[in-house]
């Protein structure tokens, strides 16, 4: 991919505007269109610029109110592509450009992009950043206030370059990446990072502190010590696996949550766990 992309002044201005407006994609979601209304509001000024013809402008607004849903951070690419297609439409003699292609592209890309985006942003990046932030915050360290600057880097980069390349390089690359399986490979790699981190988090962040001890034949028997000798962080692992198993059985998260709270109280009242 070349990184020499020339933009005209008009394009630069539009690009910047689109970038900022896209920040609002997460607002005003509805059950029926999800981010459809937001898409329209976001692209309003761009469509206005593209379609000198008022009929065409309103047609575009109406058309783009359709259902749309993706990870907001990933919207840049789709936005860029969609805008370049709308421009083709504007330039083409009336009736020769099939706008169904624009819808098709939006619908086709929003899924895979949400797959990668949710995995990466919620499942990996957010997890790591939050983990580090919590470890700072625990000590009351105000440095934590600086972390967002790092945290937002991939967010901003993907939004900005996604839109830029989406606009200029067209759909063939993304299409190709999907076909070549690069997209899947990337999601898989992200998931592996996520799963590894989750494994580590269980051992470090989930706490099931056992305080039970007793005397057997005069020697003190501390349950936690025996458990640690078999496998450190064994109970946090077991608790998480049980939760996971319940969720896979489609028990609602809220029920699992309540169940864990009850278990925590019960174990404490029984004198097994404590603080």
């Amino acid at each position: 991919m070349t990184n020499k992309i020339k933009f005209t002044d008009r394009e630069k201005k539009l690009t910047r505007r689109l970038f900022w407006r896209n920040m609002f994609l997460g607002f005003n979601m509805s059950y029926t269109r999800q981010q459809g209304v937001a898409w329209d509001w976001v692209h309003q000024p761009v469509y206005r610029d593209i379609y000198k013809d008022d009929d065409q402008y309103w047609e575009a607004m109406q058309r783009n109110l359709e259902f749309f849903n993706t990870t907001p951070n990933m919207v840049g690419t789709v936005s860029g592509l969609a805008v370049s297609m709308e421009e083709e439409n504007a330039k083409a003699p009336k009736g020769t450009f099939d706008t169904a292609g624009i819808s098709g592209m939006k619908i086709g890309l929003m899924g895979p992009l949400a797959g990668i985006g949710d995995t990466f942003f919620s499942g990996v990046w957010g997890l790591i950043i939050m983990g580090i932030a919590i470890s700072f915050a625990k000590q009351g360290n105000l440095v934590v206030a600086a972390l967002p600057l790092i945290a937002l880097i991939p967010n901003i980069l993907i939004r900005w370059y996604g839109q830029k390349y989406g606009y200029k390089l067209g759909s063939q690359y993304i299409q190709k990446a999907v076909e070549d399986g690069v997209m899947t490979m990337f999601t898989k790699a992200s998931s592996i990072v996520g799963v590894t981190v989750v494994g580590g988090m269980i051992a470090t962040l989930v706490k099931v502190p056992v305080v039970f001890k007793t005397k057997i034949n005069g020697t003190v028997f501390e349950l936690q010590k025996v458990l640690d000798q078999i496998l450190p962080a064994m109970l946090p692992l077991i608790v998480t696996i049980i939760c996971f198993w319940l969720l896979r059985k489609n028990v609602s998260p809220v029920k699992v949550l309540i169940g864990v709270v009850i278990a925590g109280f019960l174990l404490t009242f029984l004198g097994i766990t404590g603080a």
Partner: protein
Amino acid sequence: MILYQAFVVGLAMAFGKWINAYGSFAQLMPFITYILLAILLGKNPAQALIIGAAVELAFYGVMQIGAVLPQDTAVGGVLGVAFALILNQKPAVAVALAVPISMLAVIVWNLLKFWFTANVEVFEKYIAERNSHKFNRLWWIQIGVYELAYFLLAFLAILLGTAGIKAFVNSIPAQFLTGLTVAAGMLPAVGMAMLLKYVWNIAFLPFFIAGFALAAYLQLPIMAISIFGIVFGLIMFFIDRDINNIKTDKKVSNSKSNDEGDFFDD
């Protein structure tokens, strides 16, 4: 006094919910909100962070994917931390309040989204009428209502709830607080399990085990585990690429040219 407190918590809440939607800046993290909250309430920001850390730990890993939002952690977090700060309570108390509040608050979002959904046809009408002005007005009204709703929620919760919460908290027996601390410590398990469910594939099992073992036996911090996770992810990515190239080659050699393989070579 209580009015002022209710007002600033309302502001912090409005800010928090804005961040929730704007630019997917949620990674700007609630901690900023907690620091803000502490400053506005005249409390120690470091203390707010410590309380906030306990709350975020209990929410750790909870995420919204697609339609399902099991807990509104922003609302739970702000109110939990606010009450704990105002009443000078321990982190465990903040957790005790944050978790149920976060579950209840989901209702508010559902109501708002219901109204937004009803408005979709109004937006459609405005487009049909070619009325940009009305379209934009409704857009901003919705955002305004969204913000106001959460502001009011927090404002009223502090104004009306503080006395009750105080009485409630003071009546909590010590053993109950211990139970609470234990329960809060166990809560991240739910978030972890949700994440696992979302990305799970049996082929990831070894990496899950590796992450666990690295942390359990070598006491590595989160950053280190993440780095090793990236190592695993990259290794598998490149192995997959090699395997994939063969597959592609095979298909290609049966049909057309061979220039696809070098997409990634450098």
